[in-house]
Structures are given as structure tokens and as C-alpha cells.
């Protein structure tokens, strides 16, 4: 009897703590606060997470510790990652799974100064190209490797200053971010040449939501709630862009990240466009199996990964 009572209390307490743990969730976007993550801030500030019974803590990566590391170190329960980054990590035995695909298109591009005379991709052969140290370098490298272009990759943090100062021939930029920063640093669009990766067969989906497989197995219900509330957050941002921008700017100011209305407005417009499936045969928030295999093959061909990853094991859509 005594033994039974102890067992009951243990089960009840275990259940209580389990519930308490599940109701709190840490999310790490894969960069510093900006409109790229508007949907998450909106979902938090508008109480969409709370409505789902979740207490979501948004914890940003630092300039030197990226989101993947945070997931691996269990500093975050859910992270947003590029598909390529996630696949690479999975191949490196980080058991992460995609629980929803936010972005459906590639925003990556190279930018060169028009006066450099680099008009075609092949002219970047043998040139110095700036690329982020914190990640997102797989597709650019895959693109150049596939084309057998020998490139000197110059790691940078987040600023465009090296490119602006003429320290590199080209810079890897996001259409929604660094490209507009360059415009806002005084370069006119007609003074730049751009190379959109999607134009070179690399329309690889980008931001997706990932968690460790173990988390998926243990907290599926909470993850479903999180994704549902996040999608609501994005829909709200689409319908109320000005309000969403206010939320983003507040978040950025809090983090002492230099920003301004103009740039975040541009970014939000871009991101909302990238989130739409467009001509792809998927629903919003879904990962296309075709894209998955395309990306996987890209990484395999580029010798980034050697092991096979199956779609079913990688993609665990929590909303289904």
C-alpha cells in the first residue's frame, strides 16, 4: 500500500513537472532580431503562444555562436535554420528534424560593384567573396563548387563594410537584408550587379523550424502549438505590416542592433514574399519533398555530406 502510494505520488509529480516543462519553450532564430523573424515576435507579443498555453522565450544567437550550436547545446528547443545548414548538421549526426518550412525560396545572392566589371557569374572565378562566418555558406559554396569556380571565401561577421571599403570583389548577401543595407549605405541599385541563386538553379528553401528528434518525440504537442501560433503570427504580420514593424523595431532597439524603419520594411516585404509557395507545389509551412531531395543532392554533390538522409526521418511536420 505504501509502495503504491509512493508510486502514485511519483507519477503525479512526474506528470506535473513534465507539464510544467512542456509549457515553456525556447526558440532561437538564426540571426539577430530583425523583420526576418517578425512572425515570432508578433506571435509572442500578440499572445498567440500564450493562447496555445506556451511560454515562448526567444533567445537570439550571438555574433559568434550560431543557432545550430545553440540547438546542439540545448540552449534552444526550436531553432530556425537554413535547410542546407540543417541537412549538413543532420549528416554530422546532429539528430534534428524539420517540423515546418517557413521560407520556400532562396534569398541568397552575390553582389558586385558594377565598376568592377563583373557582369557574369563565371567572372567571379578566382575572386574574393565575402561570406558569413556564422553559417549560411553552403549554397554559395555549392554553387561555386558545382561550377568549378575557384573562389577565395572571406569570412565576415555581419557588416557590409568590407565590401563597401572594396576589401572583397563580391559579397554574399540576402536579398532582404544586406542588399538593402548596401542601398541604404548610398549605393544605387544601378551601381551594383546581382546574382540571385534562384536564377542559377538554386532556389533552395531557406528558413525552416528545427528541433532535436528527441524533443520532437517528447514534446510533439507543444511543437504543434508553437508552429500553429507562429503561422498565426506570420499571417498577422502580413495583414498588419505596420504593427509588425513596430514590434520588430522595438525588439531590435532592445538588443542595440542598428536598424531603421526603411530597412525593416523592405525586409518584411521580402520575407512575406519568400514565405509564399509561389509556383511550388506545397502548402504554406510545408517542406517540398522535391526541394528536400534537390538540396540533399546539392550537398552530396558538393561533398558536404556522405550519408543518406531520408525525407521521412528528416521532415516531421507537426501540424499533420
Amino acid at each position, binding site marked *: 500500500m505504501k509502495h503504491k502510494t509512493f508510486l502514485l505520488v511519483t507519477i503525479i509529480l512526474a506528470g506535473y513537472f513534465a507539464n510544467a516543462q512542456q509549457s515553456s519553450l525556447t526558440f532561437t532564430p538564426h540571426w539577430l532580431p530583425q523583420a526576418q523573424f517578425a512572425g515570432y515576435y508578433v506571435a509572442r507579443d500578440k499572445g498567440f503562444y500564450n493562447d496555445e498555453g506556451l511560454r515562448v522565450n526567444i533567445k537570439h544567437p*550571438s*555574433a*559568434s*555562436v550560431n543557432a545550430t550550436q545553440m540547438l546542439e547545446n540545448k540552449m534552444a528547443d526550436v531553432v530556425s535554420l537554413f535547410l542546407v545548414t540543417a541537412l549538413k548538421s543532420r549528416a554530422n549526426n546532429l539528430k534534428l528534424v524539420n517540423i515546418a518550412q517557413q521560407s520556400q525560396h532562396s534569398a541568397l545572392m552575390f553582389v558586385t560593384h558594377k565598376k568592377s566589371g563583373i557582369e557574369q557569374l563565371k567572372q567571379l572565378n578566382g575572386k574574393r567573396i565575402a561570406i558569413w*562566418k556564422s553559417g549560411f555558406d553552403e549554397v554559395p559554396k555549392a554553387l561555386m563548387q558545382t561550377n568549378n569556380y575557384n573562389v577565395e571565401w*572571406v*569570412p*565576415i*561577421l555581419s*557588416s*557590409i*563594410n*568590407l565590401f*563597401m*571599403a*572594396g*576589401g*572583397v570583389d563580391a559579397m554574399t548577401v540576402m536579398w532582404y537584408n544586406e542588399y538593402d543595407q548596401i*542601398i*541604404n*549605405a*548610398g549605393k*544605387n541599385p544601378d551601381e551594383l550587379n546581382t546574382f540571385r541563386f534562384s536564377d542559377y538553379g538554386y532556389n533552395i528553401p531557406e528558413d525552416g523550424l528545427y528541433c532535436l528528434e528527441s524533443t520532437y518525440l517528447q514534446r510533439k504537442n507543444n511543437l504543434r502549438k508553437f508552429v500553429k501560433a507562429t503561422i498565426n503570427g506570420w499571417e498577422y504580420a502580413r495583414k498588419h505590416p505596420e504593427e509588425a514593424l513596430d514590434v520588430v523595431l522595438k525588439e531590435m*532597439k532592445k538588443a*542595440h542592433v*542598428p*536598424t*531603421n*524603419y*526603411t*530597412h525593416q520594411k523592405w525586409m518584411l516585404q521580402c520575407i512575406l514574399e519568400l514565405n509564399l509557395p509561389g509556383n511550388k507545389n506545397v502548402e504554406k509551412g510545408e517542406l517540398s519533398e522535391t526541394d528536400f531531395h534537390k538540396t540533399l543532392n546539392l550537398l552530396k554533390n558538393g561533398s558536404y555530406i556522405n550519408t543518406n538522409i531520408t525525407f521521412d526521418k528528416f521532415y516531421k511536420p507537426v501540424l499533420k
Partner: protein
Amino acid sequence: MASVSKKSLATRIVYYVAAFCVFLFLISLSVFYFFSKQSIEEKTIENARELTQNTVLKTEQVLISSGKILNNYRWLIEKNIQHPDSMQNYTRRVLEMNPEIIGCAIAFKPDFFAEKGYYFSPFTYRSNDSLVSTQLGNKEYDYFLMDWYQIPATLKKPYWSEPYYDTGGGNALMTTYSMPFYTNPKGKKEFAGILTIDLSLEWFTDIVSSVKILETGYASVISRNGTFVTHPDTDIIMNQTIFSYAAEMNCPELRKIGRNMQAGKTGFEDVIINNQELIVSYKPLKASNWTLAVVFSRDEMYAPLRQISLVLVIIVIIGMTLMIIVVKKVVENQIAPLKSFAHSTREIAEGNFNTVLPVIKTKDEMKELHDAFEHMQTDLKTYIKNLKETTSAKEKIESELRIAREIQMGMIPKIFPPFPDTPEIDLYAMLEPAKEVGGDLYDFFMIDDTHLCYAIGDVSGKGVPASLFMAVTRTLLRSVAPNQRSTKAIVNKLNNALAVGNDSSMFVTFFMGIINLKTGEMNYTNAGHNPPIIINGDNKTEYFEITQDIPIGLFEDFDFTENTRILSKNDRLFLYTDGITEAENWDEVLYSDERLLECITGINSLEPSEIVIKVARDVVIHVNDCQQSDDLTMMSIIYKGLKK
């Protein structure tokens, strides 16, 4: 103007004076405003240029001297590069010697000293008034990727970093000046690392924030990439570039200015932001490739002028109001006697000549008016007095003349028909004097049962003398005729009686006849009178062809002629004075003998009264209301013959 003319004289004068003053003021204000505006604009622009220049000099001085400090230490570091542990001392030394510097690092390239590892960067920074020395660089603060290291290391030249919040080092908004340093093993120059000093931007903000121009004008520093390093709105600092701000404000001109700044140009340009016209004066800080801009509002530039103008307008409005009140009062005072004069004039017009005139103490036009009024008053009094007397005299004379007329008219027979018991004859006569009394006369009476005496005459002249002469003539006729049957004898007697003592040489044209009613024989004498007209029974009308003697009263003892004519039954005689034939109309055309004859012709069926009235009407028609100038006298006689 119609409404103005109804207003009082004082109001009208004030109206014109005020209108002219307003006009003058508006012209003056416009000229003042135009020239002042020009002058203010020139001075403010000049001030702004100087301010920009001075601020650039002040800020650039700090930047240049900081650069020099680094240069001075570089050779020391390069010389002692084989002693890594001494490097920290240099960083401390830099801060000790240069209070404006808040951090100094000697950042060696990766693995420069094998024993120091991948990262080696002695770094000293200020913290709470003390110096803290540490090592920069670890996995989380990978300084090789920091702009302050990477860019000068790549470009191999000194570099002023974009302003930044340094989370790894000074933890404040700062800028870093970096400079590559080299090692020289075996005589070969090799890149060794980056030497940096950190400057807080507070000194910058202090200098730049102290710049004030006009009310809200300010200075701002913009970095190489367009980032606002200083700005009065702290939300803009580090968050906005001039280009993002231009896009947010939808102001392409500002973007152009930003690009000019990046090109190191100096400029002075107008730009409209938030509907506010701003003037931007900018000049590069050549040491760092940043730009200093002085910004001020065009509106504020003219604000003092507008204030002065407003004050002027208020003063003028108050002044004008006072002027209007004062001028109106003064004018009203000055012309106040006019009202009294008007009152006096009405009094005088009503006959009160002794009315008191207003007292005028001044010696101006009003005094002249007063004197003229006084003179007029006196003259009027005299005139009216004389007029009264004259009128009284005239009325008396008129009254007497009226009586005289009545007497005169009483002297001539006026009962028609005069002889109702005498069927052989009928007669009608009329006398209309031109004045109260006249000089014409007619008369008729029976001398005996068978003889009718008739006469018509016209005394020379008119009025009272003529009427008296007429009265005498008529009285004489009545006294002489009863004992006579000869017209010649009667007229001779009359002539002699009138000619005696006729000092005034008056005379009478006179026609008289005596008709024997039984025989129709008529004796007659014409003393210078118009020949009568005879209309016989056959309706033949003609003037008497008779001897026309001189008028009576002229020459004593003149022997007049007597004629005889036998009247047939129903012969009509028409006698008249020259008042009829010489009656004038407005065109001074005479009635004439011819028209009289024409009027008389064909009237043999008419009675004497009808003949007279017909002629009288014809004369009236002829003269057409023209004033009667002579007495009008007519007589018509019809001889009807013996009663069978």
C-alpha cells in the same frame, strides 16, 4: 463711393487719410520685408558656412591628433615586436598619456607568437577612471573578423571604423582608428597585426551637439556609409543612415546630398523634410571620410523677421486706430462750427435774422466763413427791410391801380345788348387793357331817338397816364356830342379841348361815327385811327376807304374831315385798335390787317358779340400765350335797318 458720400465729412476725411496711410505702410513693410529677408538670408548662410567650417576644424583636430598618436607608437611596437609581454605596457601607456583615448589594442595576426596562441591582442580600456588591461580574442570575440581589424588588414592602410557599439571591448558607442603594423624579419616587411585606439563618440557628440543655429538648427555627423553618428534625435543615431532616412522621409534630394557627402564634397543645399524646408550645409571630415552637416530650418531663419513684421503690423493697427480716433476728433472739432452755421442758416431761412452765430476764436477759414455769414446776415436784414417797404408800396400802388381799373371800366358801357328797344341796331364791344389800366376807349350812346353815336380810340402810351387821357377824352365826348350831329364838329371840339395844355404831348387816335337809324346814313371822322372794316349784306368785307386825319390832341384848331356813308340793311361794322393787328406771338409775328380781314370775312350771319368773340379767340390762338403788349379793344355794330 455712394456709401462714403453719405457719411460725415469727418468720417470721409478719416477714411481717405487711413486708406492712404495703410497703402504707405504696406509699401514700406513690403520693401522692409524684402530687403531684410535678403539680408537675413545672406547673414545666416554665411554663419552656417562658418559654423560648419569651425566645427569641422574642431572635430577633425581630435581625429588627426588621435591618428598621429597611433603613428607615434607604431614604430615603438614594431621595434619591440619580439617582446610580446611588453605590448600590454604600450597599450596602457597610450591611455595614460592620452585621456581622450578610451581603449588601445595591439591585435596580432593569428598565431603570430607561437606561445601566445591563435589570438593575441593586448588591450587596455578605461573603466570607472581606472585602466583595465586584458586580452582580446576568443571564440566568441573573433577579432580577426571585426571591421576594425579585417578592413585595415585587408586594405593594408589605416581605417576609421564605422561607429559601433562594441560588445566585446569598450561596451559603448565608439569608433576605432586602426592601422596595420609590420614585422621585418630578414629584411622583409610582413604584416603583423593591427594597432587600434578607441575613441568614445561622446567628445564628438559634445562638440557637435554644442552647435546651435537659430531655434532648432543643429549639426550632425554622418559616417562614411551614411550612418548618423550624432543627431539631436537619439533614435536616429546608429539606427538610420542618411539614405534610409531619405527613403523613410520620401526625400530623394536627401539621398543625393548623402551621395555628395560620400564623394567628399562640400555643399549647401535646400531640402524639404516633413513639409519643412531645411538648409543643409555640409563639409567632409577628411581624416575619417565622415561628413559634418549643419542643418537649419528656412522658416526659422525668417522667424525673427516675421515677428518684427507682426509687431510692426500690430503697432500700425493700434497706431491707425488711435490716429483714426484722434483725426476724427480733431476734424470734428475743427468743423464743429459748421453744424452751428447750418443751424443758423436754417434759422435765418426761417426769418430769424437775429439768430446768434457760433463764436469763432481762430483766425482761419472758419473765421472767414463766420465773417461772411455775419455780413450776409446784416445784408439780408437790410434787404428784407427794404423788400418789405417796397412790397408794401407796390401793393398799395397795385391796389390803387385795381381801383383805377374798376373806375376806368366803369366809364365804358358794358351792358349788352345796349339798346334792346331799338331794333334797328345791335352792338357789342370789348376792352382788354394790357396793364391794370389802359389807354384804349370805346363808347356809344343815343344822341336822340334816331341817332347813335359810337367811338373808338387809342391813347398814345399805356398805363396810368394813358388811362387818365382816355378818361378825359371819353368825358369830353359825352359832354360835346349831345348837342351835335356832325362828327367833324365833335372831333374838332375834342381836339381843341385836349390840345390845350397838353404839355406831355399825348394824343388819341380816334374814330367816331353817328348813324341815323332811320336812313342808314352814317357820318364819321377818322382821327388817325385804324380804318374800320365793313361787312355788307352781300358778305363783302373791306376796310373803309376814308380820309385818315391826324390823331386828336396834337394840334389845336386842326380841321378834321367828315365822311358820309349810307349803311344798307345788315351792314356790319367792325372797329378795333392796333392792339389787335399788332398782337405779337413768340416769333414776334404780328396778327396783321390781312389776318383780321380773313377772320372777319364770311361772317355776315353772325351777331356783333359773336364777331368780337371770334376775333378775340383768333388773336388768342395767334399770340399763343405770349404776353399781351397792348390793349385789345374791339367794337362790332350791325345795322338792321328800319322795322317794317
